[in-house]
């Protein structure tokens, strides 16, 4: 086994330590700087509680929709290829290259008053911009490809021999889907779901534009943190930040497990 020089290892550890480790420790230190009592009192902040609830609701709607779309589109792209799916395969990744601010802007251009669908929506009495549906749409946009990017390569690699074998054994398509297809992409999907969830609860720029950032109405947790810092209410901001940091650590652990399972599966295949 070739060994890398120790100096390289130390350099990398320093780089990651300064860039990631220090900020991570810092956010915890800041949130607990006044002790646990103050931290738990800060948790009962009315604005923040509303923001947490809103973020949770947005995730509850946006994540399942994107998982459904991601898995479905992946199956369609891989298993029923056509000229159309090749186009779909390309545009599905486009949201990743778009600045969140632009995401917010484009949604506003269509769904706000004066936008393309503005008058239609007004006639129907549907409020999309500066309300819950707009936030959900922005969240879906920014996290759209995260599931399919995990699932598509896996489906390509797996091929459909397992499904064909199952169908020669007399299994119904529905049974094949649940017992073979879905099971083989479980961990890749879990990985995609965690990434989607992380993106949805962490989105800032796009949500900032489409929500209008109204406290106690359309302010998500990320917006609440931003607002606290703008109002020099740094401590309250750090309490919110540490909640999100803890959520992302939990997601990281799930990601780690998902990747580990994926790798095990690959070893088994090899």
């Amino acid at each position: 086994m070739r060994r890398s020089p120790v100096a390289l290892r130390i350099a990398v550890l320093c780089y990651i330590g300064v860039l990631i480790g220090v900020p991570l420790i810092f956010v915890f230190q800041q949130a607990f700087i006044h002790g646990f009592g103050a931290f738990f009192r800060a948790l009962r902040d009315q604005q923040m509680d509303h923001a947490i609830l809103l973020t949770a609701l947005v995730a509850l709607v946006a994540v399942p929709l994107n998982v459904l779309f991601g898995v479905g589109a992946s199956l369609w792209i891989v298993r029923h290829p056509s000229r159309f799916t090749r186009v779909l395969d390309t545009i599905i990744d486009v949201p990743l290259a778009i600045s969140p601010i632009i995401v917010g802007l484009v949604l506003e251009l269509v769904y706000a008053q004066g936008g393309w669908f503005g008058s239609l929506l007004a006639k129907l009495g549907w409020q999309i911009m500066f309300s819950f549906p707009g936030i959900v749409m922005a969240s879906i946009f920014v996290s759209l490809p995260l599931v399919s990017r995990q699932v598509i390569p896996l489906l390509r690699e797996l091929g459909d021999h397992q499904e064909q074998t199952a169908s020669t054994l007399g299994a119904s398509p529905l049974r094949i889907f649940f017992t073979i297809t879905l099971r083989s992409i479980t961990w890749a999907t879990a990985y995609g779901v965690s990434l989607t969830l992380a993106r949805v609860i962490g989105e800032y720029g796009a949500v900032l534009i489409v929500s209008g950032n109204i406290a106690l109405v359309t302010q998500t947790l990320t917006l609440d943190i931003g607002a606290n810092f703008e109002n020099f209410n740094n401590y309250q901001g750090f309490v919110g930040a540490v909640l999100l940091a803890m959520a992302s650590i939990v997601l990281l652990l799930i990601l780690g497990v998902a990747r580990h399972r994926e790798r095990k599966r690959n070893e088994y295949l090899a």
Partner: protein
Amino acid sequence: MLAAPPKETPIAQAKSPPSTGRQLRRVNRRRRRGAAKGLAVTYLSLLVLIPLAALVTNAFNHGLGSFWRAVTQTESIDALRLTLVCAFIASAINAVAGLATAWVLVRDRFVGQGILNAIIDLPFALPTVVAGVIFYTLYGPLSPFHVDITGTWIGITVAIMFVTLPFTVRSVQPVLESLTFNAESAASTLGASPARVFRTITLPALMPALLTGTGLAFARAIGEYGSVVFISNNLPYRSEVASSYIYSLAVSDQTNSAASVAVALLVIALALLIIFNVTAQRLARNRA
């Protein structure tokens, strides 16, 4: 959503009116699948395609001249240049650092490696605004290290470095893992020094993945907002990145200008992504 792939129904059979229960089920399945596809396309259209079309329309609905004026405003040019410079520096640094990190993760063995491997993904998982406020506090006016880099290109670059770190690591790492040592060993039996082996054998093998990862990082960096907005202070002409500028235009109801700069930024991001990907593919082709 979509049913699992059944055998394709022969065309003749599908066209004849469904008579048996089996055929009826098949036709229903096709209808269900058709409906699912329609739903997927509608979803994508309402969320992505129509809004993007609206962006382009808004950018050009007062003519090419007005688009060009909006993009070439001094404030806009300064913002775009600052964004590109910072994104370039950050992704260049991360190309090197990411390669080194992937190398250490794959070719080295040490205690705490698992933690290092897990923590690499933190910038993916941590909300950008959290990163933004942390860097603002760490390296701002209240800095515990007495380092204030707010309002400078350095601050912006550091924030971008944080956000884009995982891209290169995660694209290089699997390729490095899949490399057998044989080509490297062969080079060393031919007398090549370790440095030469790395330069002539290992690095070329990793180059496509490194380019792809750096391209993704670059595209992400160009549009970054949440992590940058606090530390940059958003001083027009000085420390305002493109996304901040678009935001300020959008909230001051200069929608057409905002759309114009947004189109410019999008085109740059997509062009860079394509250039990086095409180069990576060209390099990879020889290695098939």
